[in-house]
């Protein structure tokens, strides 16, 4: 039976470590926010100031209106190019322009054909440029007036934050939690303080539980911080209840912390623990949780692997809570999966944890 006094001793000491080490504390609190902001703006698929070269052979009212529409959109920056230099491939090669538009002489008449060429060496951007340009042309051509209203539809910013904020909460949480426990245990091994604990009658379970408990609070704090910043900066909606969010985040944080424990039973040094914790949380969460790529379209083998990625379940949960306002009834299955994973990892960690030096 684990002895509560011993667990409390270890957890209490861990709290001192956390509070004393103001720099780590700052990292734990500031890093998620920074990450959210950086990821948020980097993943933000809004275009700005794309260099666009236009060859206007019409020089009439209609063509000027089109050019003006591009200019005023803010997405494009029109670069002046002499008529004889207007060779799209050359402009792309010299990185002077990312897109070119040729307006024919008959602009303004029925069925004008315009040629838009886009530098697709970065396919994602090219896709966006195309969408934007079509939007501008469509709006300008049909109404015959300059009406910027439809453009808001093409500002993917609002839409993508729905998509990336929940994913980032899942990713940042698992990463930080796994780092916290794995480093805190491997640090004791490295500093030699573990030796003094191991001569006492504490059991592996007591040590591990004592290490996990204080970090649960820290993890939950992070969860709310990221959510808050996401709602504030990126205007994500929150349709569900905060209590449900708290409950399921607790399960997820616990699961991630146990993942860190497991890492610490393998890694001998802090460095190894850090690399390992990052390695098994960052990319798998990004790629295999259903965050960036939908799980049903993955090959069968990968689909199986996604079953052991905690973020996979948390994503279902958090998207459900935030966007659809799901409650426990719809989410309990995903929650159960997290609980099972946590228990399994804790058991394996206890079994693997060595009560000896080597």
């Amino acid at each position, binding site marked *: 039976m684990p002895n509560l006094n011993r667990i409390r*001793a270890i957890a209490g*000491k861990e709290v001192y*470590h956390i509070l004393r080490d103001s720099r780590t504390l700052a990292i734990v609190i500031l890093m998620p926010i920074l990450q959210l902001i950086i990821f948020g703006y980097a993943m933000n698929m809004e275009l700005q100031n794309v260099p666009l070269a236009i060859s206007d052979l019409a020089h009439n009212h209609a063509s000027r209106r089109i050019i003006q529409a591009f200019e005023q959109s803010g997405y494009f920056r029109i670069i002046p190019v002499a008529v004889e230099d207007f060779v799209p491939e050359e402009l792309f090669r010299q990185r002077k322009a990312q897109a070119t538009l040729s307006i024919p002489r008959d602009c303004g008449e029925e069925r004008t054909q315009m040629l838009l060429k886009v530098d697709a060496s970065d396919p994602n951007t090219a896709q966006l440029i195309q969408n934007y340009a079509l939007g501008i042309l469509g709006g300008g051509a049909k109404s015959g007036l300059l009406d910027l209203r439809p453009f808001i539809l093409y500002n993917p910013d609002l839409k993508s934050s729905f998509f990336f904020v929940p994913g980032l909460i899942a990713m940042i949480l698992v990463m930080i939690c796994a780092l916290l426990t794995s480093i805190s245990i491997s640090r004791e091994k490295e500093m030699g303080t573990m030796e*003094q*604990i191991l*001569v*006492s*009658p504490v059991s592996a379970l007591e040590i591990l539980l004592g290490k996990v408990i204080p970090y649960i609070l820290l993890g939950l704090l992070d969860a709310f911080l990221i959510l808050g910043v996401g709602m504030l900066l990126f205007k994500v909606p929150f349709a569900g209840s905060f209590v449900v969010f708290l409950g399921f985040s607790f399960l997820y944080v616990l699961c991630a912390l146990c993942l860190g424990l497991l890492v610490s039973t393998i890694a001998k040094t802090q460095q190894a623990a850090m690399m390992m914790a990052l390695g098994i949380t960052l990319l798998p969460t990004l790629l295999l949780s259903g965050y960036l790529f939908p799980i049903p379209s993955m090959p069968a083998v990968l689909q199986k692997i996604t079953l052991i990625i905690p973020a996979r379940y948390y994503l279902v949960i958090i998207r459900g809570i935030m966007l659809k306002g799901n409650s426990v009834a719809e989410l309990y299955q995903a929650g159960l999966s997290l609980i099972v994973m946590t228990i399994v990892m804790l058991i394996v960690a206890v079994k693997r944890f060595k*009560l*000896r030096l080597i």
Partner: protein
Amino acid sequence: MIKTEELTRKFGDFIAVDHLNLQIVRGEIFGFLGANGAGKTTTIRMLCGLLMPSSGRIWVNNLDVAKEGEKVKKSIGYMSQRFSLYQDLKAKENLEFYAGVYATPRAEAWENTLPLLEQFGLKESLNMRTAELPMGYKQRLSLVCALVHNPPLVILDEPTSGVDPQARREFWQVINQLAFAGKTVLVSTHFMDEAEYCHRVIIMQAGKEVALGPPRELKQRFEVQNMQELFMKVAGGINAKLK
């Protein structure tokens, strides 16, 4: 109190402790001497259950360490050679932490340690960060932490390294008090005047016992005046051969 039988520990091919047979009785102060790397710490760690022997057996209080590790651990107070308290904790917090780890009630822990803290002049420093204590005081605190749960067996690995001559004498006063109170004390040291205070010592060399007995008897057997000379003769002689 302690008995080992053909105790051996290998690291790969290297034999760090080589077929050691020890018998240490209750109330005894037993000293481990030997050159650096002789295998003192390795032996001590096996006695505490920190390392598995490669072969051989250990009994502490008639309990087999390999089988009843947890029971044995309760009866041991251990001070490691490498300083291993938490530097970012206050002295007092370290004490309370170890009391907690041994599930000793706070009041009892203070009762066990307060006289020692006073004797060591540590009481005023209880609220200082451990990292800020001078080396010698850290060692004193380590010793006190090893005694929070009032263990019958006290194992000290080089407790007086880095401690000034006055404090070394205080350490030994405490060690004597412990033995007087019926505790068994195992202690390793590189100070040969301290070796004189042990009831019995073992001198180790390359994992093996090269001399074992009460200091007085050993001095007679090797025809030397004091333990310093004895050490130079026994350990230094072998070192000379290595050269």
